[in-house]
């Protein structure tokens, strides 16, 4: 089945935050109230009860003046997902359409995923001792609906559909933006981390929107999950087997050599 994804076009977004509300509504997430920090941003970051937020970035440039940009953030549904790699209980799965799903029944709240994720998306929900995150509305898309955020988007900044189709659309849009006053316009999510099941059309470089320019799964995580975890642990049963063998052979050989084997013959350990 084709990968179904969201395309988010920064240049069309007005930061109305309808997507945030729709997400809370569909996923039945309670309100999280955080103190005012002098920004339009509702929360510091996504949290256990807020799967998506609009982040605001204000910067001043001597040439272009004040620049105020915003971007929708949520789980990127990476094709090579770090959360899936590290989860000791296999709570993460990929759907046929490319969404990364988290199963709360399997989750034990260890939060390995929270610290492995290059986008810091999985968040710990203390009251349940579980991790939560965006599901790309897998429950809706399985029934042929669009995700709550994309359905509610008033300006058409969010569209949902086949990844290949949306990728073409994004490329055309980037071409248009580059020709019309946004020379740095770019696509995000096409190649990052081997492809994300979330596409962004950005009007500027990713770092201007607080996105990692070259996200990567830390090497030590790959080494740990691909080498240490599956193979290194076998040392322990090898040691136990050696001890068991020795337990038998020392006693057999001690009898053979006539002595008690306690201190006269062998035994220097």
């Amino acid at each position, binding site marked *: 089945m084709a990968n179904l994804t969201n395309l988010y076009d920064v240049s069309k977004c007005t930061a109305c935050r309808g997507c945030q509300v729709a997400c809370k509504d569909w996923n039945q997430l309670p309100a999280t109230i955080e103190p005012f920090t002098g920004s339009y941003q509702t929360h510091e970051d996504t949290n256990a009860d807020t799967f998506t937020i609009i982040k605001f970035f204000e910067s001043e440039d001597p040439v272009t003046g004040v620049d105020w940009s915003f971007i929708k953030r949520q789980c990127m549904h990476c094709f090579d997902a770090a959360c899936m790699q590290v989860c000791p209980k296999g709570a993460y799965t990929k759907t046929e359409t490319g969404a990364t799903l988290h199963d709360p029944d399997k989750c034990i709240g260890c939060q390995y995923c929270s610290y492995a994720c290059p986008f810091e998306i999985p968040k710990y929900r203390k009251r349940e001792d579980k991790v939560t995150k965006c599901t790309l509305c897998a429950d809706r898309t399985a029934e042929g609906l669009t995700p709550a955020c994309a359905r509610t988007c008033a300006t058409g900044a969010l569209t949902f559909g086949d990844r290949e189709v949306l990728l073409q659309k994004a490329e055309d849009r980037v071409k248009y933006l580059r020709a019309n006053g946004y020379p740095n316009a770019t696509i995000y999510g096409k190649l990052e981390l081997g492809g994300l099941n979330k596409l962004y059309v950005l009007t500027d470089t990713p770092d201007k929107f607080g996105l990692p320019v070259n996200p990567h799964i830390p090497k030590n995580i790959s080494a740990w999950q691909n080498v240490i975890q599956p193979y*290194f*642990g076998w040392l322990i049963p090898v*040691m136990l087997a050696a001890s068991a063998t020795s337990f038998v052979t*020392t006693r057999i050989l001690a009898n053979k050599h006539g002595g*008690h*084997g*306690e201190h006269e013959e*062998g035994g*220097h*350990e």
Partner: protein
Amino acid sequence: MQWLPEYKDDVERVERFNFVARITHWGHTVTFLLCLFTGLVLFLDGVDWLAAIFGGYAGAGLVHRIAAVLLTILLAIFVVFDFKGIISWIKDILRFGMNDIKFVMSFPLEFFGFPVKIPPQTRFNGGEKGNSIVTPTMVILLVLSGYIMWFPSIFPAGLVRVAYPTHDIAMILATCMVCMHGYLGSFHTGSGESFWGMWKGTVRADWAKHHHAVWYEETYGDKADAE
């Protein structure tokens, strides 16, 4: 079949480990094994039954943390109350020399019970010196990486990420050493007497003379008297 060598109190015995050393040793045995089995719940797949012993994954996590704190306290007790003992332990490890290398070379044969001739050893033989370096280092790494993972918000994210594989590697190496150490220090026919050194504090003088000749001479032998 004989499991442990018999404890004989009618022969001359010499002290091998003092009270603090023994308390911390057995305290660490209990807390380490508790941490190990509650930790394996996450390391291995399909061990729900192991988690169930501790009351599920949350219970195993709680036991793991309590045991870890006790283990840390025991480390502190060891440092505070037997600092001299630690220093002399380190000094003995630093005496690693030719005799220790010869010991390690012939150890595989000795391990399986073949009679081999071994040069005189200091208080800790070549293998024990190795164990004395690896196990405490790994336990310290386990403690450090453990607290980093426990309180991730007060440490940099990079450090937290490194802590996970560190905890695993240190666990594996420490457990390997503990498997060998546990066996050699009890059921191994040659070295089993050392079990009583750690349990009651004393070992047979003739065993000490035979297994740790240098140590015996310096501590209880003619050299000690001369000083």
